[in-house]
């Protein structure tokens, strides 16, 4: 049985301006020790998916409308606050995007590090602090025994993210959710942080959900990939399937945007247009307005059903364009006509 089995997860935000469909029917599963990468543009619902699993969505305005998230036989989405607290920080931990604001500036690092330990295990303060020191050493913080009693502002951004990792892993959770753990950091420390996460994952056998923009990181670390767009699942499969046999136009276009895969000296490829406005219902395929493939129909009705191409490899089988050919065949054409045919703002496709 999978460690985590998410089915039809749907999280909406009920704001004054309407219902924002941040996550709209996302499903995936994850085994122990596995790494799942969730990729997509900003606003595609990656983070909200993670927060929904941890039930960290502010309610109201947010609400988990449908779906199940079976974690080791229990549905995370239907848990009471007490049961949830036993899981949070104990069996599932999370690392947030911005380490500058995610640590409490009023409390010592030691206090924050041992908090989860003391909350979830019977441990005295002294052994907890010793464990905290060991945890800091594991993530490469020098003079950990001295620095454990510092305050967050005495650490740099990269160091704080290391502290966050140490804090998340101190209880040796089954699942670690890393929500863009390197986005807010200096490029020079991004690789270090990813290495630490990978190394600790190997040490502890933790399953990881890695949310990121960086497809290069996904290729290097993930077993499985989930491509999201407009709160929906566009394509999912093993890293190999997604990178070598991408099926969905969006996955293909996204891959074309990886700078290192593009010819030097040329203008970098970007997908024209903007992500869809998820506060309005999106008929058919969410990517349709920006899709470079030749259109074969008008998007309407429910979103396309997920179709399995080969075992484990699914895509949102859109029937509104002809995406049988590789993307290179349409790109030169799309590049020429991009400005005329592709709407500047998405969501105006009705």
């Amino acid at each position, binding site marked *: 049985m999978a460690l985590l089995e998410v089915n039809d997860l749907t999280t909406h935000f009920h704001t004054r301006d309407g219902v924002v469909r941040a996550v709209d029917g996302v499903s995936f599963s994850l085994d122990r020790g596995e790494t799942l990468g969730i990729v997509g543009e900003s606003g595609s619902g990656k983070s909200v998916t993670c927060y929904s699993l941890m039930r960290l969505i502010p309610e109201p305005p947010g609400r988990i409308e449908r779906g199940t998230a079976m974690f080791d036989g229990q549905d995370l989405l239907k848990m009471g606050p007490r049961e949830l607290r036993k899981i949070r*920080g104990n069996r599932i931990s999370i690392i947030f995007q911005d380490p500058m*604001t995610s640590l409490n500036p*009023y409390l010592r690092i030691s206090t924050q590090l041992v908090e989860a330990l003391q909350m979830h295990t019977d441990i005295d303060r002294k052994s907890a602090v010793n464990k905290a020191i060991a945890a800091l050493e594991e993530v490469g913080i020098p003079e950990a025994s001295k620095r454990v009693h510092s305050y967050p*502002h005495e650490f740099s951004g990269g160091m704080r993210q290391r502290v966050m990792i140490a804090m998340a892993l101190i209880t040796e959770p089954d699942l670690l959710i890393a929500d863009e753990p390197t986005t807010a950091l200096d490029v020079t420390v991004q690789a270090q942080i990813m290495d630490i996460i990978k190394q600790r994952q190997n040490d502890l056998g933790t399953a990881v959900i890695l949310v990121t923009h960086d497809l290069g990181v996904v290729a290097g670390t993930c077993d499985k990939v989930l491509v999201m767009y407009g709160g929906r699942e566009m394509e999912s499969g093993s890293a190999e399937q997604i990178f070598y046999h991408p099926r969905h136009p969006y996955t293909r276009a996204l891959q074309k945007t990886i700078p290192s895969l593009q010819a030097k000296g040329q203008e970098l490829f970007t997908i024209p247009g903007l992500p869809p406005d998820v506060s309005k219902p999106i008929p058919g395929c969410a990517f349709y307005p920006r899709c470079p493939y030749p259109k074969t129909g008008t998007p309407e009705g429910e979103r396309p059903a997920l179709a399995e191409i080969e075992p484990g490899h699914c895509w949102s089988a859109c029937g509104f364009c002809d995406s049988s050919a590789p993307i290179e065949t349409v790109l030169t054409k799309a590049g020429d006509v991009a400005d005329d045919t592709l709407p500047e703002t998405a969501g105006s496709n009705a």
Partner: protein
Amino acid sequence: MLKFIALRLVQGALVLLGIYAVTFLLVAATPGSPFSSERAIAPEILAQIEAFYGYDRPIGERFVTSLGNVLQGEFGPSAVYANRTVTQIIGESFPVSLKLGSISLLLALLLGVPAGILAAVKRNTWLDYVPMSVSMAGICLPTFVMGPLLALVFGLILQWLPVAGWYGPEFVILPATTLGLYYAAYFARLTRGGMLEMLNQDFVRTARAKGVPESTIVWKHCLKGGLIPAITFLGPALAGIISGSFVVETIFQIPGLGQWFVRAALNRDDFLVLGLTVLFAAMIVIMNLLVDIVQVALNPRLKYD
């Protein structure tokens, strides 16, 4: 930290010197004199009085003499109340205001801070709306409305408490409540604002993700930072509240310090005006220093320098 305190005390002394000089000049520049009255006084008697109080000498000399006296803790005689010195007047009335003020402030903190925390934690529910509406009313209702209202209900209608005078413990209750409710309203709003800001921080989400219960999030993660606005207000509030309230003292007939601020100015009692100003300024300086020390203790990102 000792260096910080010493430095701030020196700064405070300079501030006090400046305030003393400005007040002295303003008082001296005011037309008329403490001794002008409707009854005609023989010129030679007036000259004698002025000589007694030192008014016959040039202003520079008077300033130096009075400053010298003040440095020795002697504010001089009252220019209006014969046979009483400024020190005596303050010595009699200040303890009264100090007692009334301390009790009021304690009441304000005990009521206001918990109400603010509760309102922030239960924001946008009736536990937020009710205390916040009451506190808005408390800020808007001046003490000269609240005071008589309380006196009317608890003194005259219910006959539980005395409405005026200053004789026993029961005489403290109504004026302390009047004054305390007003400050409680401020503390409630400031605490609510501070706590709300903390509760919306990212680190609260981190704490929730660790499985920390909501009560621990409030007390351990948010209280320190959330109290900072209220504590910043505490300095001037403390100085203001223990130096007496003219309105409350007048309504409840209390022989406190507040009434002297008004009487000294009306009577043109030069020495008393100077003495009270220096006392009030000194309290503000000391309270602000205390507040700064507490701020550094609460916020690890601040340092003494």
